[in-house]
Each structure stands twice: as C-alpha cells, then as structure tokens.
C-alpha cells in the first residue's frame, strides 16, 4: 500500500514539473534557512560544551558605581494663554540626582573577599577577559586573547580537552606559569595540535609559560570563554591582585544547584550591593552589581540594555516573530499550490470513492504524497544547509562563532520537515477528501 502511494506520488510529481519545481524550491529553501538558524542558535545559545550547566549559571560581569547629589532643579513651565499671551511658572525643587555613573569589570580582591561563599552558589569562578597578548615568532605576528582564571573556572565550564589537563588549585596558589590553550592557538603558535605540544614552552610577553592542556575552541563567542589562552589568575598583573578599588578587570560566574536556585543567588548579590558601604574617600557613594542568567546576559550584551527583562524581550520577541513569518509565508504558498494540484485530481478521487475508499483513505494518501514531496525538499535543503554551514565555518564569516552541526540539530530538522509536510498537506487534503462522488465524476 505504502509502496503504491509512494510510486503514485513520484508519478504525480513528474507529471507537473513546474509545480514540483516551485514547491521544491520553496520547501528546500525554507528548510535550509531553518536549519542554518537552528544551528546558529544552537551554537550561540545551546548547552554545548563548555556550557553544559548553562541553566544553572548566574553571570556577574560588571559593577556600576554611582554618585548621587542633591541638586536644585529649576523648572520653567510655559503656558500659552488665549490671545497669544505667554505665562511662565518657575519652580525650584531639591531632588536626588545621579550625577555620575561609571561601570566596568570588577576588582579581583573585591570578588575574592565578598563573593567566594554566597549561600546559594555551589561553585564560583572569576575570569579576566580584557587582555590581548601580541608577539612575534620568527618574524610572524600572533595575537592571542588571554584569560586569567581561577582553578574553579575549569569546574564550571566543562571544556573539551583534546590533550593534557587543566591547571589545579595548587598551580594557582603558587602562581605556576602554566597555560591552557585552544586548538586554534596551538595551531597558530606551534603549527600543530598534538600530544607533543603539552609541556612545550610559550613566550608570552616577558614570561614563559608551559602548556598544560589543549581545549577545543567553543562554538560560541560568549565573553565568558572567548579566549585563546587561559592562565592562572595569580600570574596576572600584580597591580590587579593588590587593588583596593572595587573596579578592575574581572567578571564572575556562579553555579546554582538547580535552575530555580539562580534567583536566590541574584537576590543575594543585589542585597549585598544595596548594603555595601563605599569607602569614605571614594568619589562614588553606591554600587550596583550587574547579574543575570545566561540568556538575559546574552541579550543585554548584544543590545547594550541594562534591564535583563527588557533586553530579553526586545531581542527574542522580534526574532521569534520574524522566524514565524519567514516560515508562514512558504507554508501558505505551499498550501495554495497544493490546493491547485489536488483540484486537478478530482476525478481520480471520485473513482476511488466510487470503488469504496472512504474519506480517511483519501486524506492519508494526500498527506503521504505531500510528505514525500517535503522529504525530497528536506534532503535538498539539508544539503544546501550543510554546504552553507561549512562555508561559514571555514571563512569565519561570523567571527569567532561557528555554526554547529550536532545530532540535535538534525533531530530538530527532521521534526520541522515532518511538521512542514503535514501542515501544508492537511488543509487541501481535507477539502478534497470530502469531495462528493457524484460531482467529481460528472
């Protein structure tokens, strides 16, 4: 039966090449776009390594310092009276006014002192992400984005180690000059990614570091792990380690027991910031610690928006609406085409019904035919998408971000293909299955 339907479906497709072409064009293109988008979202926001615990993280990238002064506010209200006469109301009020704000990363000693034992957090990590190291190797220039991290960084972010290991608490305590590098950095500096690189030395600035491990470069370019090389926090600039200020070069990330536990950590951070007493000699008089979940942090970073809720809304709602529209249009188009196609086969349906087929059989047949069509389109779309993904990744079109082509992406893709075929087939098939035998055989 199925085989019959299948052969019939192919015959029908061959009979009207123009319609088949138009349908396939729409289907394959739409599915390609969907697959590339899925892959992009998976790369940026998916819980791939090193973000396996994505939904348990609270990110605290910045501190904001403010100074509030009570100021005289002069307000002049102008009222245009009837007849062109103007009236002015002048008023003075005293109001608290934030006269200066300044925000940026946080000082390491400040983090060390106040954020190592939050009640809600199972683990924490601090990282400094704002340095580049330039150098020359046999006349060839290299630029490495360097991160100074605590040993707990490797516990929170489960990087995929290709060779070697991470560095441990003892390394950080005694400021050992060891470094974990990405495969990209290894290729750039040593020209190879192999076990042999482990233990070799890298001259970075005036210091020499020993390679401890090589990790796979993450797909996403999140500022939490966009580094090429990772060094123990204690090897950073001594000025940073002895700073008595609140601002510096570090960000923090906390791990909650469960996704629900994140709110408790954020509340704890906020309450700390509210009650924090700035030193008397400081120009600023209050602080606020930015904190957010992973998704909120992503939206905030991209839009430069302060409020996590607003940022998430303004980023994700338009994207979702846009994607829905982009899917809906080809879908409607396909329904239109299918309507026409099915109409032409009225007499065939009439004959089948006259010989005893019921409406359900007809419905199934048409949906099946449509699924065959979408499946073919899906295969073409997938081929196009894979080509596009590998092109994007090879050329580094998106900067650090590379598109993923993981099994999950294929699974989503399969679901989308089935949905697409089903949705675009059901309406025309339903209409047709209810055809009156007498009318269609006339």
């Amino acid at each position, binding site marked *: 039966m199925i085989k019959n339907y299948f052969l019939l479906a192919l015959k029908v497709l061959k009979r009207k090449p*123009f*319609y088949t072409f*138009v349908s396939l*064009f*729409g289907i394959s*293109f*739409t599915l390609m*776009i969907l697959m590339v988008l899925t892959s992009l979202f998976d790369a940026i926001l998916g819980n791939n390594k090193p973000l396996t615990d994505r939904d348990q993280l609270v990110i605290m990238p910045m501190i904001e310092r403010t100074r509030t002064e009570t100021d005289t506010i*002069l307000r*002049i209200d102008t009222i245009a009276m009837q007849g062109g006469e103007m009236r002015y109301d002048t008023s003075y009020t005293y109001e608290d006014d934030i006269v200066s704000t300044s925000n940026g990363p946080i000082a390491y000693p400040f983090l060390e002192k106040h954020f190592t034992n939050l009640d809600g957090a199972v683990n924490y990590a601090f990282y400094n992400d704002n*340095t*580049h*190291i*330039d*150098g*020359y190797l046999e*006349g060839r*220039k290299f*630029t490495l984005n360097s991160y100074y991290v605590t040993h707990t960084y490797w516990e929170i972010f489960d990087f995929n180690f290709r060779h070697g290991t991470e560095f441990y608490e003892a390394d950080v305590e005694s400021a050992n000059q060891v470094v974990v590098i990405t495969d990209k950095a290894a290729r750039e500096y040593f020209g190879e990614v192999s076990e042999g690189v482990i233990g070799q030395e890298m001259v970075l*600035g*005036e210091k020499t570091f020993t390679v401890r491990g090589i990790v796979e470069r993450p797909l996403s370019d999140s500022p939490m792990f966009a580094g090429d090389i990772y060094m123990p926090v204690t090897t950073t600039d001594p*000025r940073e380690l002895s700073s008595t200020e609140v601002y510096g070069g570090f960000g923090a990330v906390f791990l909650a027991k469960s996704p629900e536990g994140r709110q408790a950590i954020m509340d704890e951070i906020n309450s700390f910031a509210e009650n924090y007493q700035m030193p008397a000699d400081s120009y600023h008089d209050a602080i606020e610690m930015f904190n957010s979940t992973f998704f909120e942090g992503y939206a905030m970073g991209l839009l430069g928006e302060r409020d996590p809720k607003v940022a998430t809304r303004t980023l994700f709602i338009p994207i979702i609406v*846009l994607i829905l*529209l*982009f899917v*809906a*249009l*080809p879908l*409607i*188009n*396909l*329904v*239109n*085409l299918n*309507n*026409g196609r099915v*109409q*032409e086969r009225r007499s065939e349906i009439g004959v089948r019904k006259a010989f005893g087929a019921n409406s359900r059989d007809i419905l199934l047949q048409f949906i099946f035919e449509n699924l065959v069509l979408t499946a073919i389109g899906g295969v073409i779309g997938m081929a196009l998408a894979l080509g596009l993904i590998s092109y994007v990744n090879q050329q580094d*079109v*998106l*900067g650090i971000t590379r598109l993923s082509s993981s099994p999950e992406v294929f699974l989503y893709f399969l679901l989308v293909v089935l949905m697409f075929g089903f949705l675009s087939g059901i309406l025309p098939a339903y209409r047709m299955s209810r055809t009156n035998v007498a009318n269609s055989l006339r």
Partner: protein
Amino acid sequence: MFRHLFTLMWNKRRANGMIFLEILLAFVVLFGVYTFISYNLERYRSPLGFNYEDTIGVRLDFQDDMDSLVVLETQKLIRRDLLAMPEVEDATFLGDVNPFGGSTWQTNSLINGQNISTQMMFVDEHFMETMEVDLIDGRWYTEEDKNAKYRPMVVNKEFKDRYYPNAASIIDTIMELGGEHQIIGVTSDFKYKSNFSENYPLTFYPQIDRLEDDDPFEMMILRMAPGQKAAAEEKIYNLLVNYTKNTDVVIWDMAKDRVKANRSIVIPMVILIVISGFLLINIALGLFGVLFTQISRRRAEIGLRKAMGASSGLVTTQFVLEVLIVAGAALLLGVFFAVQVPLLDLTPIPDKFFYWGIVAAIVTILVIVTVCSIVPSRQAAGLHPANVLHEE
C-alpha cells in the same frame, strides 16, 4: 466595472483567502525589512569624517609609577622616533576611546536651560592631521593651548546643528561641559563607532583633562605610507616595548576594525536581504502557479466573454484587476497595522523610515502581483472562443 469585480471577488472570498493572507504576510515582512534597511542606509550615508585607510592602532601601557611629566616626555620621544621611520607618515596619541573600538564615553550637562548630551573623545593636537579631519570653523588645538586661560575643546558639526542651529558661529563659546572649556573649532560630520552608528554630538578634549585623573593617553593611531602597514609592525612593536619597558603592546589594523565594527549591522542586513529575496521569488512563483490553475479553470467563461465581443485586452485587464483587488485589500489591512508602529511611537526609530518602508513594500508587492497575473491572463485571453466553447 470595479463594482462588478468587487462582487465577483467577494463571492469567491474563500478561494482567495489564502492569497490574501499570503500577500498580507509578505507585506509585513517587506515592511520590516525595508524599514530596517532604509534606516541603516541613511545612517551609512552620514560620513565618518576621517580617513582610516593606511592607519594602524596601537595600545601601549606606561608604568604606573611614572609621573605625568615623564609620560608627556616619553610620548614626545616615541612620536619623534616613530616619525623618523620612513614607513610612518604621522602619529597621534589618544585616550581610551578609539575609532571602531566599541567603547563610548558620554556626558550630559544642563547649559543655559538646555540639556546638552555629547560623546567624548580624548585626542592630542596631532589628531586632525593624522586622521585627516576637516574643520568647518575655527582651528584645532595646539601645544600652546595648554597654557590658555580656558581649556580648549573641538566639537563636531552635529553638536552645533543640534544645540545651536541658529548661531552663525559657536567659536569661543565657553561652557561647563566636562569641566569649563572653550570651543575653538568645529569639525565637519564626524562619528567614530562604525559606518552605521548615529551621527551624534561629539566633543574632542585634550590630554590635560585626563592627566589630572592619572590617566595619560595610552593609545596611538599611526598613518603609514601606502602599503607599509604590515611591514613596519614588528619594528614599531620593538620600539614601543623598549620605551615603555612593558610588552603590553597591541597593534591592529584600523581598516579591519572598521569591518568588524560594521559587522553587527552588515550580517543581519545581508541575511535579511537574502532571505526576503528568496521569499519574494518563492511568492512570485507560487502566485504564478496558483493563478495559472485558477484562470485555466475559467476557460469557458473567457470563451463566452470573447464570443460576446470582449477584446483580449479587456479579458486580461479583468483578470489582472481581480488579483489586484485581492492584493489591494490585503495591503490595506497591512498598512493599517503598519502605520500603528510610527503613530504609537513603538520604537525610537524616526517615523519617516516606517513610511518609506510602507511605500516600498506596497510598490514591490504590486509589481510582483501584476507581473505574475499578466502572464497567465494574457495566455488565457488569447484563447479562441470557438475552441473553448466547443470543449464545453
């Protein structure tokens, strides 16, 4: 004739529902895409105001224990040695905010009842020549301005246009903007973040404003002889490491930074254009197919009309108008929704871009619908009544 067609279309509203919906959605998508593109192209049109070709950026790090006089002296020596290199044509020092660097420094002040908001850049007296900035009024600051009664500042054209549109000149105006300063020059249009950034009021301050916060200029922009960018890099690097006793020296290509800074707009724009281009082709082909079947099912009607004396042109007009009525109805509904966006001020984007978006979307859709309906209609109109009526 119109009334007749309206009735005809209304009677077939169920069959036309899908086409109506398709055109409505297509309009919404196009409206959004056109608005986004026109808004960004308008921004792109406002010039950067400086020349980034053949320039490199450099970041260095002076030791913290150097006092400001030593730093100033070192800066002079560095500049002298760099200019002595044949590859380097000019050099300027600047503060934390650099072109295409992604950071912003902004200040607000209430001046004579007017809230003045300006972006700030901290640059030295060689910035104008090195970056090839045009002045439309006044002059750039020089070494001597350090001892002037008021500290100098230079503003861009947008600053004057936005806050003092009617003044003939704002040179010598003294205002309390990031400290008391005297305006001594006005540049032509100048924006530094990216080609797509807003043309925003901007003020240039000299190094002295940063020195009191112990924050000397630790960035440079060098204008290189054409084609010499890569070759001289290592020499420059070694020279700077030597002077600062510090290997924290980073050198980058300004032209590449510009591409990177533009990327956050260019990539979404290219994606949107490609996707909507394919969507349009898709819709056009689909519409073409649907109209073809619909019209060919009405062969008898066409035959009858022609037998009664209608010309081919009249038949074509009828079919095209039929489709245009459906499209027009969909567009009307779409426009009703679309105008709400500027009317309700849902976004900070100026209203005119939304109206451009609406007009452009309407034109595009009407063109596509007309083209897609003319071809099947003309073919149908060419039928010979004798043939068609005979079949029936």
